[in-house]
């Protein structure tokens, strides 16, 4: 004889099942976001601070004339501020 299908409390069962699925989905989404965004960004900043050659970049910026207070030849000027 075939098993009796569920006849009552269908909505109750659905709610319980959906809550479980919803929580599981939310946790999976959060863990994925943490691994692919949060941790990646922290690592990017760590790597930047570990590998950044501040002196070399500073020299390049000065040569490129980025600063108002330092000329391309490396000499400091304050003419504009007097």
């Amino acid at each position: 004889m075939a098993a009796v299908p569920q006849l009552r409390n269908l909505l109750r069962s659905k709610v319980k099942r959906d809550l479980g699925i919803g929580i599981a989905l939310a946790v999976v989404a959060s863990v994925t976001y943490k691994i692919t965004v949060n941790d990646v960004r922290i690592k990017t900043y760590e790597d930047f601070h570990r590998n950044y050659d501040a002196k070399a970049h500073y020299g390049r910026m000065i040569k490129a004339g980025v600063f108002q207070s330092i000329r391309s030849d490396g000499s400091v000027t304050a003419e504009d501020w007097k």
Partner: protein
Amino acid sequence: MIHVMAQWGQLGFQDGASPMMEQLIFFHDHALLVLLLITTLVGYLTASFMLSSLTSRYILEQQTIETVWTILPAIILIFLALPSLRLLYLLDEVGMSCLLTIKATGNQWYWGYEYSDFKGMEFDSYMLPEDTLEAGQYRLLEVDRRMVVPTKTDVRMLITSNDVIHSWAVPSLGVKVDAIPGRLNQTSFMATNEGVFYGQCSEICGTNHSFMPITIEAINVDDFSQWVMLATQEN
């Protein structure tokens, strides 16, 4: 990380150029994580209920679920509140060991800077008009006299205004403070590396509100000392 400014089509924050801004970025990531958790759960349940044809006339109350959906959000809020308070107190702590103090005064429509640690050191900073820009300079962001600061040094900023309310903001340094007439607001920052950092007035202040930018030039401490000496030299 040379010029830290807004880019076309940018969605996220500018790169953090100070330790505080880095912490703010990390906290924002954490807050978005919590937001994603809640949105996924609520979104899935909403869609599931909308697409279902099941109903019940007899569900009137259920103490268990009421308790759960009161306690659970409270727990989630704790996960938000603790890192938030940590960062709040960290931001407050920074100003205690400042080696340099600069006063920024908002005017219509330019910023005035006073380096009161050094005698006679004050200047105004006007936006460079578009027709005077050279190749490589940024529209609406460049000024005739940048605010120069040393790197890896805590700088205290005292912000006020001579007329209406302005706001002194530099996103990459994680700074935004209102400039209110009759009031002196204090904040602090530390530029981690050398470079040029841009910001714009962030409180509507009249016709040229969009044309009074803030440009900070962070240079080596030795170069900064020389710059101060030259700037305060009598002619």
